[in-house]
């Protein structure tokens, strides 16, 4: 099956800093999604992004499908951005394969 690698595994930031999270995947995919899991365990869909760039407020994502990677940018980070960020490429049958995640801690 598809292999998904996220980096870095852990990231600690001061409030206001910017960061880039990376997701590499081993095979062609139908699309890719980014999720944020908050400290209470709820998974929130951030982006549905098979290719190109999308922006939503302080967050943006870019997927380069031909090179099998995606990037999530977080600008002007806030303490509420803390949690785990997962990328999940989608393969046949709309099935998602999750990476191991990036644990983000934003300190005040």
């Amino acid at each position, binding site marked *: 099956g598809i292999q998904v690698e996220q980096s870095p595994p852990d990231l600690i930031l001061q409030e206001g800093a910017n960061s880039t999270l990376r997701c590499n995947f081993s095979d062609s995919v*139908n699309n890719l*999604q980014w999720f944020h899991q908050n400290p209470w*365990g709820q*998974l929130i*869909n951030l982006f549905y992004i098979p290719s190109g760039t999308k922006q939503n407020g302080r967050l943006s994502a870019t997927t380069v499908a031909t090179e099998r990677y995606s990037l999530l940018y977080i600008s002007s980070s806030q303490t509420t951005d803390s949690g785990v960020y997962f990328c999940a490429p989608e393969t046949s049958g709309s099935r*998602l394969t999750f990476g191991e*995640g990036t644990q983000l801690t934003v300190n005040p």
Partner: protein
Amino acid sequence: SAVISQKPSRDICQRGTSLTIQCQVDSQVTMMFWYRQQPGQSLTLIATANQGSEATYESGFVIDKFPISRPNLTFSTLTVSNMSPEDSSIYLCSASGGETEAFFGQGTRLTVV
């Protein structure tokens, strides 16, 4: 976006017993899935819940252990059977329209003692 309600939100169960988790979506959806998230780990797909037919299980998961029902386009159940402490995890229901973003329920935190 779809709103997904899962219940129970948490439970503590005795080993050897079974627990059924319910997932209700506020609109008809094409695809429903069940995932497991073991403590401190990522999500792993258990199965695709197919409406009106048997679920499609991923490698390492079997119907006898995780029977799934999907009687209509808005509802599904997952049963964790003959539980052991190794089944202690968060179980999550997901829904999508197919080729659209996926949404998740709040999860069921299961502890087996």
